[in-house]
């Protein structure tokens, strides 16, 4: 039950003012600029863009600053902002095969055309704190090398043809594409809705689910077929112009998981796939997304559904951190009336409990006083 409570306006105003001061921190230290956040905390910014489901570095940087680095709060701010803007329409699907690649690795094929490009990565670092960075010292400029191959075919395209790996299902051109921002979620959900949900899902939640499949809760035997990161062109079909207009480029991470599959009555043994695509360089999320996408395809592939990561209702209903934080954090808000009612209820139940105890005790002492009927009943029961 919800009951309106009034009051506390002054306290709220003052609390927000205090929060603004705390957010600014020590005023003798220069304030953070949005360019600094966007440029130097780039992965936090892309995480907020991905989970906020809105690609705009400036807005994400502002949200992070406003939220004092609380990324879920920043995601919330971005989601709220996007509701103020009109929707112009849907882009043409981006072509990740034509990506300006900054990183591209495969854990399954050593010698793939275009090569293994490590790009900017934390992989192979020793995870030792770098105190030189704290001093903001001189920085080496990156090295360059001659570019010998520019074509970067997707790993999954290389294997197709032999039938060893499942191919993408070609869509009917007119098939409608589900959109969570327009239609309330209902089940069963198609893979289009699942991927949209995962793409904006919480990184930590997806990571934990993906990990659970590795530990045996719905095993999928995944290999990282390919992970690539870089810029793709976004195009929008403008009706008044009659052609697809290039809008500019966005950075995305794509992950192709390749999973061993024993086959079923209808399908011979082959590798199946899970797909991850996220805004920015958020590799852990792209990998987790691909693993969970594969797990959620259990029904389609005739696998038994036994684990949380295979349960689309469980996954999709709990992946959104804005929804989750809203429901969890609302418990902080006044529940005085609810609690008062509960208090009365518990008092009454306790009263009844004690009354019953007292009555039982009285009955027991009566029984003792009146002789050993108790024992004879017991013996009779045996």
């Amino acid at each position, binding site marked *: 039950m919800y009951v309106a409570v009034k009051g506390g306006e002054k306290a709220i105003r003052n609390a927000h003012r205090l929060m603004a001061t705390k957010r600014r921190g020590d005023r003798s230290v220069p304030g953070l600029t949005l360019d600094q956040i966007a440029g130097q905390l780039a992965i936090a910014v892309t995480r907020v863009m991905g989970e906020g489901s809105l690609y705009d570095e400036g807005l994400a940087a502002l949200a992070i600053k406003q939220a004092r680095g609380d990324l879920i709060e920043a995601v919330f701010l971005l989601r709220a902002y996007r509701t103020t803007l009109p929707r112009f329409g849907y882009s043409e699907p981006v072509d990740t095969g034509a990506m300006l690649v900054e990183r591209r690795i495969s854990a399954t094929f050593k010698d793939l055309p275009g090569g293994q490009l490590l790009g900017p990565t934390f992989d192979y670092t020793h995870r030792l704190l770098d105190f030189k960075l704290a001093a903001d010292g001189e920085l080496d400029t990156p090295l360059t090398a001659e570019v010998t191959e520019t074509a970067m075919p997707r790993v999954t395209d290389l294997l197709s043809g032999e039938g060893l790996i499942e191919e993408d299902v070609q869509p009917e051109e007119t*098939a409608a594409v589900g959109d969570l921002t327009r239609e309330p979620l209902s089940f069963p959900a198609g893979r289009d809705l699942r991927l949209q949900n995962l793409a*904006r899902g919480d990184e930590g939640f997806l990571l934990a689910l993906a990990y659970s499949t590795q530990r045996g809760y719905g095993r999928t035997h995944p290999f990282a077929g390919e992970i690539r990161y870089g810029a793709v062109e976004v195009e929008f079909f403008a009706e008044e112009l009659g052609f697809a207009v290039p809008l500019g480029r966005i950075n995305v991470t794509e992950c192709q998981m390749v999973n061993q599959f024993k086959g079923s009555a209808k399908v011979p043994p082959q590798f199946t796939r899970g797909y991850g695509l996220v805004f920015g360089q958020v590799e852990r999320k792209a990998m987790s997304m691909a693993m969970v996408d594969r797990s959620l395809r259990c029904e389609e592939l005739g696998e038994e559904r036994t684990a949380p990561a295979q349960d689309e209702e469980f996954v999709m209903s709990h992946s959104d951190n804005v929804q989750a934080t809203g429901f969890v954090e609302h418990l902080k808000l006044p529940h005085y009336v609810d609690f008062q009612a509960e208090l009365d209820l518990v008092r009454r139940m306790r009263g009844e409990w004690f009354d019953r105890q007292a009555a039982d005790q009285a009955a027991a002492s009566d029984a003792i006083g009146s002789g050993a009927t108790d024992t004879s009943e017991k013996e009779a029961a045996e």
Partner: protein
Amino acid sequence: MPHQAPPPSASPDTSNEPRRRLMAALANATPDRLAAALAPFAPLPAHEMVRAPETGLVMVRGRMGGTGAPFNLGEVTVTRCVVRLENGVAGSSYVMGRSKQKALHAALVDALWQNPALTEAVEREIIAPLASEAEAADATVRAETAATKVDFFTMVRGDD
């Protein structure tokens, strides 16, 4: 309500390619860089706003598995504008981001470019420099990335 099918892709008709190239060059420039590129054409031509610069959202789509059926990935901010010059030519822009100035400038360049007397000057003064700067930036990314390419060598096993 039901969702409309995605609009059909641009026809294979290539007559729009030069204009698409122009729009790509404008979209990839920063607002300040575009303003500077437009300087040789000052003062800006008189124009009427058919659609004043307006910021909105475009839902970006990806494809399942990279080449399969489309799905919705997330939105981008986009600003668009349509201007009409005194000669009746309309210029359009759709650019990522929230810069109204950039959208206006891009629409004006598109309108100027459609005037046959100015096409070459716009290509030379604005589009060619922006395109070559973008190409140079891409080349740097490729060269820096190439330096991180893994050269495998096989460990030869001992014979005995």
